[in-house]
């Protein structure tokens, strides 16, 4: 076996399951905090989920601030407003509930309150934070975008990357996974699947990352088909939530892959859930990567297949089996009577003319790949046809 040095980092504690929210007060005490601010987005607030966090703090002797006005995209103005409140009221920890912008705002707030307000833009980039931040607890909801647990934050047009941005604790409670919107739930699932599969074939991948990634893939395999057919099945929804958390840990240890970059660029440009775009591009992106590197097929097959299948499948059909599995998942989502999920980019609001622009945006965001190759993958995803 080749001698190599590997690195894996995951400082995140996870509390998942029934009544997990009720653990937050004691976990805060363990983090030496007792006065948190809870940040949540309007979607979460409108669904009435804030009451669960209030109930969790009953009898704890702790009071907290609740901010329910996070906009759809994270902006510096909101962070500045909350930071003034944070410092004035003497809060000592941050709890973000919901998904997307709420998490990004919480991570941005944590950077601001631990330094100078003007510092935020200077911290954009990779590993610019050099000290621990305030205790931060993430409470993802069913419509999470998979970034809650990661080391990434996206605020306005800047990306922030640091291990210090990862939450100290992630709480996954079934009450926050009750009957979510199918489109958002599938988006969460497909982001998790994309992150996990791309982590498996990443050049920086290692056994520890694979451990999280494989587990996330098996959770998605077991739970996503049930979650989309039975939206009220809390345990299946929770399984998808757990998969997103596992995939987030794996994803935090590698740089974003090709499918992630292309899907995110398409989703951002056309205001479509990024996970939906990633789900559409995934089989074609993986096909491309398997064509380029033979070992990818074997790594991916071992992550996806059951033990029995691994024994009886010939290596020559690995590639086809992987693509078939993802396409069968896509077909299941597309066959939903209510809100079917598109199988190709053509079925979304994306026009064929805009594919070069998506490719360019992905390259601008850090995708190191030839533009023509990107367009080739996007065209295959647009038409729903395999790569030539």
């Amino acid at each position: 076996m080749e001698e190599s040095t590997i690195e894996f980092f995951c400082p995140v504690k996870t509390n998942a399951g029934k009544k997990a929210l009720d653990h937050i007060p004691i976990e805060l005490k363990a983090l030496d905090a007792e006065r948190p601010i809870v940040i949540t987005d309007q979607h979460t607030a409108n669904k009435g989920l804030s009451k669960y966090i209030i109930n969790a703090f009953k009898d704890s002797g702790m009071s907290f601030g609740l901010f329910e006005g996070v906009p759809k995209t994270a902006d510096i103005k909101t962070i500045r407003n909350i930071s003034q409140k944070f410092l004035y009221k003497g809060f000592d920890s941050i709890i973000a509930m919901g998904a997307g912008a709420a998490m990004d705002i919480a991570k941005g707030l944590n950077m601001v309150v631990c330094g100078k307000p003007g510092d935020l833009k200077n911290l954009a980039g990779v590993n610019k934070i050099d000290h621990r931040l305030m205790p931060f607890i993430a409470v993802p909801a069913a419509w999470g975008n998979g970034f809650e647990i990661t080391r990434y934050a996206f605020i306005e047009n800047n990306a922030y990357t640091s291990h210090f941005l990862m939450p100290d604790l992630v709480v996954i409670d079934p009450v926050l996974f009750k009957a979510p919107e199918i489109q958002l739930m599938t988006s969460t699932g497909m982001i998790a699947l994309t992150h996990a599969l791309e982590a498996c074939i990443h050049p920086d991948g290692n056994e520890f990352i694979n451990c999280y990634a494989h587990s996330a893939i098996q959770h998605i395999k077991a739970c996503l088909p049930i979650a989309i057919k039975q939206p009220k099945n809390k345990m299946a929804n929770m399984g998808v939530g757990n998969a997103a958390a596992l995939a987030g840990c794996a994803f935090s240890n590698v740089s974003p892959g090709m499918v992630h970059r292309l899907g995110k660029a398409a989703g951002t440009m056309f205001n479509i859930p990024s996970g939906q775009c990633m789900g559409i591009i995934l089989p074609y992106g993986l096909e491309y990567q398997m064509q380029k590197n033979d070992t990818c097929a074997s790594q991916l097959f071992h992550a996806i297949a059951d033990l029995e299948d691994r024994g009886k499948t010939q290596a020559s059909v690995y590639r086809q089996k992987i693509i078939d599995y993802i396409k069968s998942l896509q077909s299941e989502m597309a066959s939903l009577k209510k809100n079917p999920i598109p199988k190709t980019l053509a079925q979304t609001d994306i026009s064929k003319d805009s594919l070069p622009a998506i490719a360019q945006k992905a390259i601008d965001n850090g995708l190191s790949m030839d533009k023509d190759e990107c367009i080739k993958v996007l065209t295959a995803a647009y038409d729903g046809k395999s790569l030539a």
Partner: protein
Amino acid sequence: MGEYKDITPGKKRLKRIYTAIMLWFVGRSIQAAARVDKDIKKEFDELPDQFLFSLGVTPNGPRMVVGKDINGRVKYMGSNAKGKAINVDMTIKNLEAAILLFTFQESTAISSCHDRLTVDGDIPNACSVVRILDLVEVYLLPKIIAKLAVKRYPEWEMNRKLMGRVQVYLRAILGF
């Protein structure tokens, strides 16, 4: 900042009262069962002199303290652990977890597996305490409920179970 609110969460009074009553009754039942049941007596005999254990809910929730007095007799020592030299301190992490435990939706072992309990003290002694709690629950609860609450329901003779149950209930209510 119109969407900002200061929240002072209230209390779960009913759940708190229910848990306090259950802990009081279980505490007195342990005292009673130690005089009635030979297995429970044996468990206590093997524990150190003046051994004290406490089971309660954090933070500032109801609590019970049970232990051996200076003469080696098992006694329920009230609901205040302050100033007492507790050997095994079992703390339920929150009131909701206590409700799951005391409405017998989860057994002590399952509750511990679900990370709802913290134990401070020697592990062998803590295991003895869990075995004692299981045996007391067998006396206090009908089989259909006790099966949910204990790890393994014991095969006892009817006489031991029925007579023991009557004695434990009587002693627990009357406090001797």
